[in-house]
């Protein structure tokens, strides 16, 4: 059963389909790391992104790139609404984390309900056809969706880490994630940083949902199901460890796809929950993957402040 051909195909398809899982997990992990929010409302951003793209491409028959911009716009609008009308207000009221989490759950269910009212709940895709052209590379079937998905995901990851590593706003984001109160004492406007983080997360989600919706069928509650994966990858990768989250999303994607070669297929869906259960009970800090310091280096608020003053 485990021939090199099968292993190569499973690895390739897993790599390609992990693209959107990585983007969802990275967005979730980023908001958790910097804003300190367990943002289940990301599902609402995903739903808005998909239906914006579907409206433009699937219904209005506009070109794919307009659908992509629509997905980004849909996700951004939800992110801004959630941050400005939700998170910011709750922070001012010093609401408890549990209350904030419940708020994000309600937002995700609310948007799914609205989507169902407007679009119905029949499964659909951004493009009318489910088929992508396939090229055989050796013995591995590579679909026309795979390469753009992998390349755009790599580009998105690179941009996020370059942002965090080399830009002032990125360093401020890292400083806020370390200690938001201290960062503010040194002149970093944390509310602005929280907003920027939500915008970055929205861009990742918009791209991820465009990729997902152009390959698989989506219903209004699909995003809520997908969030389980993002949460699992974030917890198992180590809370706040962005590189760990990415690696875990990739590993979980491969395990999910490849597990059918080793275990009865009925247990495939169970695996994710089993890993999540084990991670929460036995590894509450996640699997200790080495932090990718060169890309997400820890930056003190003092350093950012000093740099600000120097440049001023």
């Amino acid at each position, binding site marked *: 059963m485990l021939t090199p051909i099968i292993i190569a195909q499973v690895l390739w398809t897993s790599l390609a389909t992990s693209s959107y899982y990585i983007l969802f997990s990275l967005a979730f992990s980023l908001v958790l790391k910097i804003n300190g929010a367990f943002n289940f409302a990301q599902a609402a951003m995903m739903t808005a992104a998909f239906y914006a793209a579907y409206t433009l491409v699937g219904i209005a028959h506009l070109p794919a790139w307009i659908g992509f911009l629509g997905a980004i716009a849909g996700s951004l609008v939800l992110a801004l609404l959630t941050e400005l009308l939700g998170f910011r207000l709750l922070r001012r009221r010093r609401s408890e984390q549990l209350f904030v989490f419940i708020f994000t759950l309600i937002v995700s269910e609310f948007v799914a309900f609205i989507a169902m009212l407007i679009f119905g*709940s029949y*499964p659909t895709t951004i493009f009318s056809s489910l088929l992508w052209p396939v090229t055989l590379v050796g013995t591995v079937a590579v679909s026309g969706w795979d390469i753009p998905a992998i390349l755009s995901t790599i580009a998105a990851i690179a941009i996020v880490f370059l942002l965090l590593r080399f830009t002032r706003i990125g360093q401020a984001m890292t400083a806020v994630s370390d200690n938001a109160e201290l960062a503010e004492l040194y002149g970093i406007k944390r509310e602005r940083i929280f907003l920027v983080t939500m915008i970055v997360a929205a861009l990742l989600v918009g791209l991820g949902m465009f990729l997902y919706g152009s390959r698989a069928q989506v219903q209004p509650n699909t995003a809520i199901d997908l969030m389980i994966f993002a949460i699992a990858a974030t917890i198992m990768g180590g809370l706040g460890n962005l590189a760990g989250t990415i690696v875990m999303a990739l590993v979980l994607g491969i395990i999910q*796809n490849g597990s059918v070669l080793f275990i009865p*297929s009925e247990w*495939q*869906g169970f695996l994710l929950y089993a890993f999540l259960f084990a991670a929460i009970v036995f590894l509450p800090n996640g699997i200790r993957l080495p932090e990718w310091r060169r890309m997400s280096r820890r930056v003190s608020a003092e350093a950012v402040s000093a740099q600000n003053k120097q440049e001023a």
Partner: protein
Amino acid sequence: MGNVKRILMRLGMALALSAGVVFAMAPAQAQDKTPLQFGLAMPLSGSQSLYGKDQVQAAEWAVKDINDKGGVDGHPLKMIVLDTQADPQLGIQAANKLISVEHVPAFISAWSAVVKAIAPVANDAKVVQLSVGANSPDIARLGDYTYTTFPLADVDIRALAKYEATTLGKKRAAVLYINNETGTAAAQVYKDIFTKNGGQIVDYAGYDPNASDWTGLLLKVRASNPDVVHIQGLVADTPQVVAQMRQLGLNMTVSSYSAIYNQHFLDQLGSAAEGIIATSLAPGLSDPKVADYVTRWKKATNRIPNGLPYTEYLYDAPYLIKDVFASMLKNNEKLTGENFRKEMLAIGTFNLPLTGKTTMSADHTVNKPVYLVQVKDGKWQQIAEVK
């Protein structure tokens, strides 16, 4: 005076004539007497609503047609429609409302998981649940108050498996099924019948209802080298499984059941759908009554209904209920679930407008011909009628 007399006489004659016309029309109006209520619990929202809404539409047309022709001995039929989202819990809530609030003696439901969940409620309340469209073989074993007008999975999947093993001469089959009520039981039936008819099951695998990628599963199928792949899934996953099959170079014959027998499936898969075989449990467009019915759909909605065979059964169901009500009225019986069941079994065989003769067997099953359809030149075409 003479003129007045003549006018009065003419007026009297006109009144008498009008009264005669009114009395003659009375049976056709069906508005004066107490409505006879029954329930319909269907998915009007949720992932299955595409089918559910069309099925409700078909039943509503039937009720309208019955009432336009005088109802049941002058009593109009009244159908109370509730949403289940194809969710068992919501199905139970709908059944409770129909039984406790609306006091119906019978109601129609569908989707195997929903029918199964409702059955104990119907049994406790002694109210008849008519399953119309659900096809799990378990439905025949749900107690005294759940009956089906729709052939169970044993019928169409048996016919399909036998046809593929014998007529088509397929020897090696792979069976993929969604791991829920819809998939597991029917997949087992296919496996048993295909094997019994000389075939070999070379791969037999379930998949998670939330799955979005089937690469590993399909590579196992490819390695097992079947000459037919039977997929027992739902409308959300089956097209995706087929699309990934074709992308991975699995070009063997694919079969499924009536869930994929719709135009949307063809639109999603284009040429990749060519050759796929499905089942249908109701006559197709070659039947003049069905052709008229489809014309009605096209006029009203500019399309054919989703899941045409299911809607045919839903159109027929109110006629069955009408016949039972008529018998109850004729025998001066109270409109209770117990009496409904008694009369329904006493009548036994119903002549229904679209799907024809239906006999309610004592073992809670019905037996009808199975129609096999295949995608040829981008269209569904009937290839066999299996009796």
